């Protein structure tokens, strides 16, 4: 019993690490490789979670319905039920589309201006998205939120063991995204992104359409974050505007990337593990260390501390050699000391 409890806890823990790993990966595409400051991850998180929830949740019976309309019941539609829960893929595609469009719109407006504009605009978008879901009850039930969000492949196992299955789902999605991101950031495309991060004017004088690359990176990052949000919704199965408080939906993710090492995808994942470990581990500590407000404070200190003491994070960026196609031929020479921040 004792062991089963620990195991259950660990499974839950790693599901969250996996989901936050996805956010961290998305942020790495934007900040770590391209130098785009997204201060409103929560916006993409919420869009992803709400999009999938609205598309897949069955409509509630009349007694429960107050004044909101559900968008769809993808999971319950018979012609999509091919025994393999195909709706899940479809829903993720929709999430990608929605987040991609929003990222495109924000990027169009701000990416030609200096970096701070993007930060402020994303901050605003996150708040606007939250306000919309909070106030427009007809969209998503306002502050009461959406519940009974369906489980992917939920009929394969008993509800008690579902978390084991979902951990596998999260890890598979994470692995796919990791490989996909790893491949592009090590490709010439990623090379251009890093060039933009280092010196925009020089990248331009090398004939690169800086704006277009920034836009692509911002959209890709936004889509990945949206997918993270979708997985979160199917894991927790209940979302409301409170879920997307900037602390757990934006700041923690920043702390993860900065701690793990921005510009390094393995660092992004390591950071998710370390910071989530600290976050969920401290609740077992005695006295005020368990106080969520103390943890809140520590997240801020952690971000400032990393910037001050070890700007590269734990892993830091690895030096790449010239042959950079695919993951197999990519071998870091050695951990490079950064010449300059």
């Amino acid at each position: 019993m004792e062991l089963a409890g620990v195991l259950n806890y660990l499974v839950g823990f790693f599901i969250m690490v996996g989901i936050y790993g996805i956010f961290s990966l998305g942020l790495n595409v934007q900040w770590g490789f391209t130098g785009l400051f997204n201060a409103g991850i929560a916006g993409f998180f919420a869009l992803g979670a709400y999009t999938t929830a609205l598309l897949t949740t069955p409509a509630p019976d009349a007694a429960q319905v107050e004044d909101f309309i559900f968008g769809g019941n993808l999971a319950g539609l018979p012609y999509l039920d091919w025994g393999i829960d195909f709706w899940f893929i479809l829903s993720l595609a929709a999430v990608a589309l929605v987040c991609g469009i929003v990222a495109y719109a924000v990027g169009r407006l701000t990416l030609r201006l200096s970096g701070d504009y993007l930060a402020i605009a994303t901050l605003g978008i996150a708040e606007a998205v939250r306000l919309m879901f909070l106030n427009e009850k007809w969209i998503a039930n306002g502050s009461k939120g959406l519940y009974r969000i369906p489980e992917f492949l939920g009929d394969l196992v008993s509800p008690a063991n579902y978390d084991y299955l979902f951990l596998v789902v999260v890890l598979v999605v994470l692995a796919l995204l990791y490989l996909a991101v790893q491949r592009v950031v090590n490709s010439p495309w990623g090379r251009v992104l890093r060039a933009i991060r280092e010196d925009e004017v020089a990248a331009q004088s090398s004939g690169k359409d800086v704006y277009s690359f920034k836009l692509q990176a911002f959209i890709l990052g936004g889509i990945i974050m949206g997918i993270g949000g979708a997985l979160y919704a199917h894991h927790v199965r209940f979302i409301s505007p409170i879920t997307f408080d900037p602390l757990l939906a934006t700041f923690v993710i920043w702390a993860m990337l900065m701690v793990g090492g921005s510009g390094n995808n393995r660092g992004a994942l390591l950071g998710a593990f370390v910071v989530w470990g600290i976050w969920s581990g401290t609740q077992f500590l005695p006295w005020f260390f368990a106080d969520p407000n103390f943890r809140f404070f520590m997240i801020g200190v952690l971000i400032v501390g990393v910037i001050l003491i070890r700007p590269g994070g734990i892993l830091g960026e690895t030096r790449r050699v010239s042959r950079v196609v695919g993951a197999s031929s990519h071998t870091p020479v050695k951990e490079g000391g950064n010449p300059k921040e």
Partner: protein
Amino acid sequence: MTRPLETRLSPLSRLAGPIRRQWSPGHTTVAIVLAALAIGLLPFVHMGLVVNGVFLGAIIALGAVGLTLIYGILHFANFAHGDYMTMGAYVALFLTASFFPWLGVTSDGFGPFTFGFTLLIALPVAAIVVIAGAILLDRFVYRRLRDRGVSDLFMSMSSMGVAIALRGLVQMIWGGDIETYPRESKQVFHLPMDVRIPPDAIFIALMAVALVVTVYLVLTRTRIGKAMRATADNPELALVSGIGTRGVTWWTWGIGAALAATAGVLLAVFQGQLLPIMGWKFLIPVFSAVILGGIGNPYGALAAAFAIGVTSEVSTQWMNPSYKPAVAFAMMIAVLLIRPKGLFTMAGSGR
């Protein structure tokens, strides 16, 4: 000094008129009042909302003027500015609700206002605490980053970390629940056109006007104020003129933090409550005012703050009031679409 130079004068005086005129708070205030009246007199707009918007705008202005100064002189977006506001509000709370009562001094309902006279003492103390905090943070965080020559974006990011830490600190000390200053309900003033003004709002407006005028006088009349503008204009020339960077930096933080702390207290009075997240939420209207007014331009920020205050209040006539920050944000987006450098940027401001 011997030769007559008259013959060689170049005809500069003809051009001088329109370019020289800078926006002063006087001009801005007159323009705002006229504009607000004009909007309020529209038949479909509720005058009371316009008046309310002016008060909200006054608070936004306090935040935005400080933030835009920091932006102009230290060159980064201070995401902790909202939390400096929160800090100010909570320090005043500690003084009025705990410290003064402990000393045996309690007060609420001072004169026509809901709050006690202790708040008037608490306000400058809170400002001093926040100033000290801001300067300490500069000494131990931002100065180290500047010395290392990190990019402006890294500075902004560390300010975000500072913002989170400050809010965590507030929550650790005071908890996350709604608090209020010791208060007593008061009659509101009734004016024509169905305008009701709570007396507190008049206090807010007077404080805001007094502070903004003070900042204007500091910037235009005092040695250090001119040095701040000079440093924003041309840091290298400021150095060779003997203007030390450290003094200017401290003054910038000092003025910014004092305005922020006051804005925080006034916001808490205006809303009748304190919440740890109040400052962070207020960042959106404040940043919108900064961008709308042209980054680094205090006069622009001032005018934009009132525009945002009035617009977002008036919008509640048709929209859910909780959309107010979204309205401010939408105005910022509209400006980014039309004039990315802000509405009030002056030609040749050298940036």
